[in-house]
């Protein structure tokens, strides 16, 4: 039952004390016929699911938790949380017994109820997801966690709702690591920063005394690999989120850049500048042995593994200008996959394996797009003066990237860089909230 929620308590010192299904019938029912509220994502794009999330009962964090859930669901573009002002029954009363007629009347197809219990420093939050039309419970789960972690409980509940109603895993219990930018562009201060996917709990990981770029998560979400200019030596480093420890990865005499972990976390693939060229290398994180994967006589950068670890997509100008190439993870046999108009860069393989997202520069415009791994089915999702660096949410349905606005004056007036996200169908583009300008987002896997 716990696995069905994607919870693996204890293994990584998770803060959650445990989760339990409250009732069995929901699970049993799910095996028979799907809840009537369940629709596919394609339909939810045009017709977001109306859902009511009243304040959880018990006071305290109840209202806060429901607000976070509402924001998550609304931001996905696939749900339409009903305005609290329309509620007829209170969350307190609904937690005891939902009066389904009251929720039908205000147009909710799904209802979330729950109760928060303060266990003295810890919270126990039980929640139930209801299918309003047949008046049936779809899911009931209880979470226990330190009170300070109430937001995580809200994200976990959001993920359960997303998965039960859309039939796909959610992406709310995740974090984003990025480069926080401040100051004028010629003296930009760049710091590693990390935040929850909704922009909360922002924290700076480095102090800005050396430049950092290109942070990427380890598949366990506890480590980051990034590029640092510490002591004026641009190199790829590992950063441990628990200890704050940083260490150089590999023993390359020159610049290493654009690192990314393999799906099993055992290897980092990166680019190493050798003379006038740049080649892709794989570094074994345990033994630190390093292996050269390309020697194409061009600038080979931005490698990204396929989710099964068998292939690597990367960016190379070996054919004259920047294009995307795919090769086996052991190197060799690279074949070009991008053939549209323009230059292609920053490829990143979807965790679902079905798509590669990229940056395209064409006709003076930058765009974020996706194509299938064989190069077919190219779609540009967003286009503008400046944008790059897509990263997939762990369910492969949403991309985060960064957008730059054009400087309007000679002193860089009007320039900004902000994080944005967009559904892979090309809808629901929204700016993400960060305390400073931001670039180079990397989306974590699900934390639990």
């Amino acid at each position: 039952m716990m696995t069905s929620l994607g919870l693996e308590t204890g293994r990584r010192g998770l803060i959650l004390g445990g989760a339990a299904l409250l009732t069995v019938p929901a699970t049993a029912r799910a095996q028979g016929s799907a809840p009537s509220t369940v629709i596919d994502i394609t339909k939810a794009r045009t017709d977001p699911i109306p859902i009511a999330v009243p304040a959880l009962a018990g006071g305290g964090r109840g209202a806060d938790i429901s607000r976070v859930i509402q924001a998550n669901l609304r931001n996905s573009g696939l749900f339409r949380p009903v305005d609290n002002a329309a509620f007829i029954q209170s969350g307190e009363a609904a937690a005891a017994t939902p009066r389904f007629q009251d929720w039908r009347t205000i147009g909710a197809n799904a209802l979330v109820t729950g109760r928060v219990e303060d266990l003295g420093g810890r919270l126990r939050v039980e929640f139930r997801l209801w299918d309003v039309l047949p008046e049936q419970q779809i899911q009931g789960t209880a979470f226990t966690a330190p009170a300070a972690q109430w937001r995580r409980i809200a994200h976990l509940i959001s993920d359960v709702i997303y998965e039960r109603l859309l039939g796909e895993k959610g992406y709310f219990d995740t974090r984003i690591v990025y480069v926080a930018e401040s100051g004028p562009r010629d003296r930009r201060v760049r710091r590693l920063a990390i935040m929850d996917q909704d922009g909360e709990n922002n924290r700076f990981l480095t102090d800005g005394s050396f430049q950092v770029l290109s942070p990427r998560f380890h598949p366990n979400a506890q480590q980051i690999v990034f590029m640092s200019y510490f002591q004026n030596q641009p190199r790829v480093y590992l950063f441990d989120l628990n200890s704050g420890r940083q260490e150089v990865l590999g023993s390359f005499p020159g610049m290493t850049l654009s690192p990314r972990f393999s799906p099993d976390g055992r290897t980092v693939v990166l680019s190493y500048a050798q003379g006038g060229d740049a080649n892709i290398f794989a570094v074994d994180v345990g033994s630190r042995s390093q292996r050269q994967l390309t020697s194409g006589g061009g600038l080979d950068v931005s490698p990204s593994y396929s989710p099964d670890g068998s292939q690597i997509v990367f960016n190379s100008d070996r054919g004259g200008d920047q294009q995307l190439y795919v090769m086996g993870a052991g190197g060799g046999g690279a074949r070009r996959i991008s053939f549209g108009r323009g230059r292609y860069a920053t490829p990143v393989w979807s965790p679902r394996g079905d798509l590669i997202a990229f940056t395209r520069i064409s006709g003076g415009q930058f765009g974020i797009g996706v194509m299938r791994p064989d190069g077919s089915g190219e779609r540009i999702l967003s286009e503008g003066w400046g944008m790059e660096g897509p990263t997939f949410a762990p369910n492969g349905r949403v991309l985060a990237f960064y957008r730059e606005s054009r400087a309007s004056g000679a002193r860089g007036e009007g320039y900004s860089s902000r994080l944005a996200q967009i559904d892979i169908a090309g809808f629901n583009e929204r700016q993400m909230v960060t305390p400073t300008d931001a670039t180079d987002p990397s989306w974590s896997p699900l934390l639990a």
Partner: protein
Amino acid sequence: MNTKILGALGALALLAACSSEDTAATGASTGAGGAGGMGGAGMGAARPGSQEDLVASVGDRVFFDTDSTQVRGDGRSTLERQAAWLARYPNVTVYMEGHADERGTREYNLALGQRRANSARDLLVAGGVSGQRIQTISYGKDRPAALGSDDASWAQNRRAVTTVR
């Protein structure tokens, strides 16, 4: 970066070093390390062998065409003068910084900047400077000298800058 360069002085020298760049001396130019501040010695008073001296006497930077990593003809003569200047100060070691304009992606531009730094370094070495004295470093598009989003600014940003360590 720990380099120090004078805004006004840098701009003057820049004008001298690359007269083919009609926009090279705009007020937005801030010099190699991006310190951009004013102050220090006036023209002609730079300490011999210092960054200020390099800028004032031979010019600290060369420019590149879009997507090109070949030093242009005007840049080659700048690098010849830099090699002669470095021969006068055998104890000076330098960074050769490679840069790119903002119309490319960050990671590719880091590699492009590295290639530009290497091209410029190779010409210094060809001019007799020991390769041991030159450390290349690339900032890609992340340390622009000119802050505008226009052709003139981009022309100034596609550059390799020699900075005294």
